[in-house]
């Protein structure tokens, strides 16, 4: 089997073809040319991306019956369109606004992937804070030029892309390489599904043990007479038997009841993230704080007005005498 045949028979071949089509479309969009050409490019590119997603679905195997797949695809399409506009729009402010679109689409995907906290955090932090900063800087730094009749144009360096062919080629190769990761992902997910499932359940059960209020709330839903969690010498008297948590509560009278609580219902994703953040990765959390602090210092230092000091001023600041000895006192210093 010669290499060409090998490549042709590779399961990823359609993926590569789709990536190539998408890249070709992107190239057409990037190249400054006629609007029709660019529109055609947009269509080709979108088709290519659609093929990529279709290939992804094919790789993912038969449908699991989930209804959310079209939503995924829609958000993905919106995100990619936004991203492409970011890199193609001749006016920077618009590019930034399209970035917001991408962020929103990513937020949607996050939401569907059960990362609710991050979905909103992303939108707030990125779309709300970072992108606004970008826009401020864009506006502070530069005003787009106007032509003779007052139309707002774009700077040459914003209009004309730099080496689009090379960049697109590189992008194609990158996409093709990443294809192998995407190819293997569903397979690995299937293989580890059972383990992942049981570990996730155990994680949630363990997490529930750390959340007595949630536990009591859940128990009350099952056992309305419960007054509080039962305690023994070792602390809370609840126990877990794998999937379910046996919560022992003090009921009416002095009776102690055992209530079964499903941790999957009891602990939501946001709680899990919060617990992970403070219980599993506290040092990283601190580190993130330090990074932000440093960034703040850095920003302050950068934002300060730079005053050019002469040699004499610098010497004076260091506590040394002036180098020029015969200059009268009155003439010393000064900018």
């Amino acid at each position, binding site marked *: 089997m010669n290499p060409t045949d090998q490549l042709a028979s590779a399961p*990823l071949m359609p993926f590569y073809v789709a990536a190539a089509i998408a890249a070709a479309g992107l190239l057409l969009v990037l190249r400054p040319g006629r609007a029709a050409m660019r529109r055609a490019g947009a269509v080709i590119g979108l088709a290519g991306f659609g093929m990529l997603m279709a290939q992804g679905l094919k790789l993912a195997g038969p449908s699991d019956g989930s209804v959310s797949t079209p939503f995924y695809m829609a958000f993905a399409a919106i995100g990619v369109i936004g991203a492409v506009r970011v890199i193609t729009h001749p006016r920077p402010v618009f590019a930034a606004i399209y970035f917001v679109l991408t962020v929103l689409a990513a937020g949607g995907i996050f939401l569907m992937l059960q990362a609710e906290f991050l979905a909103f955090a992303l939108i707030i932090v990125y779309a709300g804070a970072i992108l606004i900063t970008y826009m401020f800087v864009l506006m502070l730094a530069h005003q787009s030029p106007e032509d003779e009749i007052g139309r707002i144009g774009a700077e040459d360096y914003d209009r004309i892309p730099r080496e689009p062919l090379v960049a697109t080629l*590189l992008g194609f190769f990158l996409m093709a390489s*990443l294809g192998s990761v995407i190819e293997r992902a569903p397979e690995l997910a299937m293989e580890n599904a059972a383990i992942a499932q049981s570990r996730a359940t155990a994680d949630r059960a363990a997490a529930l043990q750390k959340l007595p209020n949630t536990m009591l709330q859940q128990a009350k839903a099952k056992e309305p007479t419960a007054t509080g969690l039962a305690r023994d010498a070792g602390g809370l008297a609840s126990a877990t038997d794998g999937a379910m948590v046996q919560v022992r509560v003090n009921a009416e009278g002095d009776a102690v009841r055992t209530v079964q609580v499903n941790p999957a219902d009891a602990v939501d994703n946001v709680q899990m993230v919060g617990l992970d953040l403070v219980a599993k990765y506290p040092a990283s959390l601190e580190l993130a704080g330090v990074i932000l602090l440093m960034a703040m210092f850095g920003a302050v230092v950068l934002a300060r007005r730079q005053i050019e000091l002469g040699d004499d001023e610098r010497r004076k600041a260091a506590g040394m005498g002036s180098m020029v000895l015969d200059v009268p006192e009155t003439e010393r210093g000064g900018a």
Partner: protein
Amino acid sequence: MMLPSLMLALNDAAAGHGSLADAVIPKAVAAPELRWAGWILLLPAISAVLCTLLAVLRTKSKLPALVTVLSLGTCFAMVLKLYLSRGPDAGPVVVHLWDWMNFSWGGGPWKSFQADISLYIDSLTMLWMLFVTGLGTLIAVYASEYMEGERGAGYCRFFFGVSIFLLAMSALVMADNLLLLYLGWEGVGLASYLLIGFYYQKPAAVAAGKKAFIMNRIGDLGLAIGIWLIWVNYGSIEFNTLFQAFGDAARGVGGWDRSLIPFCLMLGAFGKSAQLPLFTWLPDAMEGPTPVSALIHAATMVTAGVYLIARMQPLFTLHPDAMATVAWVGALTALLSATIGMAQYDIKRVFAYSTVSQLGYMFMGLGVGTAFGAAYHVFTHAFFKALLFLTAGAVMHGFAGQLDLRRLSGLRKVPGFAIVSWTMLVGCLWLSAFPYTAGFFSKDLILVQAMSQPRFQVLGWIGLITAAMTAYYTFRVWFRVCAGPVSYVPGEDAHAHDDHGDHGHDDHGHGAKAHDAHAGEFHPHAPRFAINGVLLLICLGAILAGIPGIQALRGQHNWVQEMVYHSSAVRASGVDHVTTPVAFGLDPHGVVSVFGISAAIGGILIALWLHLLDRRMADRIRTALLSNGLTRWLPTSMENKWYFDEIYHALFRLPMWITSHLLHFFDRHFIDGLLVNGIGRVPVMVGRLFQPLYNGALQGYATSMAGGLILVLAWVAWRWLGAGGVS
């Protein structure tokens, strides 16, 4: 004739010592009570340090001379005390002063190396030390007046050099191991270099210093290899151990490298003592101040080679071929330099060639087997040659650097130069081996020893011819300079005369500049107390040096003989007496003395005729020789030193010059050009290749990074994730 019978008596005396000589060299005993002898090394060192300090303090006084004279005089006194406390026939002792090198890497022979700063004191050491320190002191006194024109930094420098020389020479002579000897050997070489180049602003002096140093290096290389071979073969470099080892080695057979040892040592000795292959530096060394010529290049340092071979006599005895080589080299050097000396016009150069010639005699003496004769000749020569140089220095001092014997005449009648003239006469008589002078006795001992061995008889004849030549050129100088009508042309230093700034410029006697214009105003600068006093003292020493000779003649035990016979030089060899009782069918002593006396007197008479009675005759002979095509080579080659410098130039310097230029070419164009710069150019060219990538555009770099990232990612995907289902 009374001499033959006297000589017979000497023969008996020598035979009497023969039994002594056969004895094994006694093992040296440690003598910690003599540790004070270390001051003999320390005092010159202190003096050197003080001279440096005085130079730093910018002294203008004669303090450096005072310091040096005091320390050297104390040294002499200590040597004298040491000698008197030991007596002439005491055995060798080792005085350990300080640890120097003491390595051991496992037990057994050849597993340790010891070389301490220790003194090996036997009578040979004492003999050398006595005249080295004694003459050193006297010449320092002389120099205090001679060098007074240099007062200041130069004065300090001069006496620093003298102190360093005495330090190194003492270390050389008193060392108990070859490494310390080598240290001293290099030290005297350094001192010699520093003092020859004393007038460092004079190109000739600098060149002479370099020449001496380089020539000596060639010899020193031989000595170093010899010392290494000795350690490899005998496992020690300490004399005490070595002399015992030589005794054992005499019964064993050595390899080729063992036979090489004496030749290596010889090379060192010939370099230091200016013998045949390496002699050309000594005449040039006369560029140094005259006291230096007298002390270092006539009396003491140049006898270090003789000392080395005398000291290693037990080793040389094991190799008869080496002994013969020493004898032949000595004899040929003596003859050759005598012929050159006959044709020189510069007084100091004549004396320099006579030094080379006399050193040849000494080596001949060592080679033919009379260490006594050689050592005695060293001893007597030290006095009369120092005397001659000092008188030459006084003449130079007085006549503004004039040393051309054609431009000086009748000095004995010039006021103030009487002592100089008459002491020079003493020196000349002694050098030409006039009967019953010290030089006569010492030279005679060597000649007798050579004549009485059939295989060395040729050397004896060469020695006799040389003796005649020596007498001739010595008295050529005296008759020209001191006798005859008073007339002189001052040297080129005349302008400096008034402020006593004249110093040893000695090589311009041949200069074409006429100084007749100055002659009317010029007043010779007569030597004063220090120079005259020293001349008289050394003259006295030279006369007294003959006493042992007279004693030897009378068959009495004499001082030098005792000294030599009680040292290792003779005890091991056992050949220091006449082995064949007859030469030419007669008693050798009688015959040889007659020949020797005839040669000396004949030479003096020829000199008297050619250079005093009929001075034009010498020129006429020279012109006649030059005009005849057949004989023209003789005077020209003699005057041109047999073209030795030119031959060396053609044989060594020129090929080296060519080789060095070839190598330089090779180095510049191949090593530097092709290899060094070529290799350097490879990255430059590779850089040029990739230069467009580094255009400063951020995205350009990002492209490279992304490309690399993608390559890595693709490889990882292919290799581990099995992209394309191929894995």
